[in-house]
């Protein structure tokens, strides 16, 4: 599918390019970043040059005949589907899952917490087969919708199911374990004995579990470590995850006081911490990301990103969608995978000894012989 978006892009870039006094050739740089190219459009401002190439990332499926096409809908938490964080992960999973079963997928973004119910209803009324709701805060609305629509399968990301509903799978993660491993890693890698965590909020349990798991992990590995954990509790969910400047300032403030490993978690705010650490590259400060392998999603921090405390949402969502297609879907809680991301460029910073230790801890955590002792949520 060819798009006219480059036209819009051209319009948006026009004043800027004009302001630069033609220093930059309008077409070239834009074309480079353009994944899908239309043949030269008539609009003069449109920097469209290259012939149609790769398919768009949001490629709509070919309408297949006969066989019933499974329709997958996704409702984000407040925020955008491209947040480089859990919404994006879940959407990638939904796309992948839908593609794997030759279904189609669409999303609706939430901009007001009051709209959860309504946004889910959107897919219900369009008779979607699978509805993915992303985020802890959509829990109640998802349960309600699931009960009201027993024929539709629901996947609630980060939603712990107290009383299982047959057609609702809560994809949950033991963030405390991921946090614990991150904490252990941080404590062992730190040279100064000071480690810190910059977290978006303590009111959203997954983030809180990451933070408290981190705390437990650090203390487990090095009881005397100097530990700083800062939660950004601001006005409401729409801000607390979206304040990268604060995340960065906090991370820098920690780095200035000798903290040399910083764990940043929670949407843009957490990403801000990674950016902050990247600025202290010369001081040897290391960053640890969250949710996905942020080496890939926050390339600016590549040079300092030791690892990420991952909860593998996309695969979890995708697997559940496939399960629907295979008829193996079951309600209740489904544990997604958590773990450490690869060390990438900084592999040399982690000694074999540490790696072994981390592996042991992972096994112990899985086996239950080692407990993080983190409650499900801040009490």
């Amino acid at each position: 599918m060819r798009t006219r978006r480059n036209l819009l892009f051209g319009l948006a870039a026009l004043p800027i390019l004009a302001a630069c006094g033609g220093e930059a050739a309008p077409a070239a740089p834009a074309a480079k970043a353009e994944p899908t190219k239309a043949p030269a459009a008539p609009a003069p401002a449109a920097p469209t040059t290259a012939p149609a190439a790769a398919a768009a990332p949001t490629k709509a499926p070919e309408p297949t005949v006969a066989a019933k096409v499974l329709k997958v809908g996704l409702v984000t938490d407040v925020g955008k589907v491209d947040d480089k964080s859990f919404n994006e992960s879940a959407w990638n999973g939904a796309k992948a899952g839908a593609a794997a079963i030759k279904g189609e997928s669409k999303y609706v973004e939430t901009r007001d917490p009051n709209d959860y119910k309504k946004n889910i209803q959107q897919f219900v009324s369009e008779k979607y087969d699978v509805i993915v709701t992303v985020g802890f805060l959509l829990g109640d609305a998802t349960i309600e919708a699931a009960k009201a629509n027993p024929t539709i399968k629901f996947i609630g990301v980060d939603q712990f199911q107290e009383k299982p509903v047959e057609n609702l799978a809560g994809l949950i993660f033991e963030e405390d374990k991921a946090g614990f491993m991150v904490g252990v890693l941080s404590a062992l890698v730190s040279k100064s004995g000071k480690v810190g965590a910059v977290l978006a909020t303590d009111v959203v349990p997954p983030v809180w579990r990451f933070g408290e798991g981190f705390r437990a992990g650090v203390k487990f590995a090095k009881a005397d470590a100097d530990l700083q954990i800062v939660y950004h509790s601001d006005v409401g969910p729409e801000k607390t995850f979206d304040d990268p400047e604060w995340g960065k300032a906090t991370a820098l403030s920690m780095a200035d006081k000798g903290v040399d490993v910083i764990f940043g978690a929670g949407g843009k705010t957490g990403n801000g911490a990674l950016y902050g650490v990247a600025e202290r590259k010369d001081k040897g400060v290391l960053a640890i990301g969250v949710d996905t392998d942020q080496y890939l999603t926050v390339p600016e921090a590549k040079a300092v990103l030791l690892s990420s405390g991952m909860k593998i949402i996309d695969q979890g969502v995708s697997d559940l969608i496939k399960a629907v297609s295979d008829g193996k879907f079951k309600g209740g809680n489904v544990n997604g995978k958590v773990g450490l991301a690869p060390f990438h460029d900084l592999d040399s910073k982690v000694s074999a000894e540490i790696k072994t230790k981390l592996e042991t801890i992972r096994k112990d955590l899985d086996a239950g012989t080692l407990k993080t002792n983190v409650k499900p949520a801040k009490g």
Partner: protein
Amino acid sequence: MTQAVRARLIGGLIPSLAIVTALLIGGVIIWASGPRIDGPWFGIWFVVEAYQALIEGAFGSRAATIDTVLRMVPYVFTGLAVMVGFRGGMFNIGAEGQLAVGALASAWVGFTVTSLPLVIHLPLVLLTGCLAGAIWGGIAGLLKARTGAHEVITTIMLNYVGGQLAAYLLNGVLRDRSPLNVIAQTPKVAETARLPDLVPGLHSGVILVIGVAVLVWFVLWKTTTGFELRMVGINPDAASYAGVNVVRRMTWAMGVSGMLAGLAGAVQVAGVNYRSTLGFNVGYGFDSIAIALLGRNTVSGVVLSSILFAALRTGATKLQFRTQISTDIISVIQALVLLMIAADQIIRWIYRIGPAQTEADPVAASTAPVADSESGR
């Protein structure tokens, strides 16, 4: 009197043209971000489809319509709030903060008091919301009247103070302590503090909002209080000459303005959410200004504008669902509407409507946001 009739006709025409023009420009933006299929007509179908989805999403089904109406309710309250302020010569940018404290206070009464019957408890909850909003707005009014501190600045600042206060209380003493709750919100209010449904899904706050709108109209245009308020709004010197206590009336105007915004919060608590949640007030401040201005500071205008804004917001979901473009397009359209209402010269220029009738006196033709029309309906 044909001139007056003509003026009134144009007065009603301009908002409509502003809306149409904003939608047209919005259409161009949607078109530009749509998929390209060869031939211009097909591109335009994308826009048609988008707007069709918008309308369907807002009114296409019973559920959609109910949703639109539910969303309209707080808009009408906050729009009236801003309008009352304008009519009293006060620019209330603080509906957002007043709504927040109103919701907090009503939720507090809603969940702490549990032994009252509905007929007492529910009004108590709503009145508490009113009172909290009135205090929050009244502070700005009092400061303006007593010290001259400009209400625009103080209400902006009070918005943030209110937001922070809400965050503090919702994370602290007002927080739902049940083990299941993990976010900054109050417990659910008692059954007796909830607005009963008119029909399933549609709470009776709709009746309340109609009643309040009529009441506001009546008070502003049919009572001595309203007469004084409008006098203060147009010419505070003349008002004090006429024996009006201007300080009291200004404070009153901001208090009532805040009260209406607080009531919006209370009705959301008692009718929709059954609790006060952090951050749900965000956006009402600026939207309500747009609604009051689009409605030319008349009650019927505010109601119509609220329906429009509610429909735009409600329909946005379906628009995104169908087209997968960002719902921010709605904000762009709203901003364009407001732009063209505020600067109606743009509309007059585009549609070749003559300039506004310049009255012999400059005061009446002033550019103040108070509508040129003195008629209230």
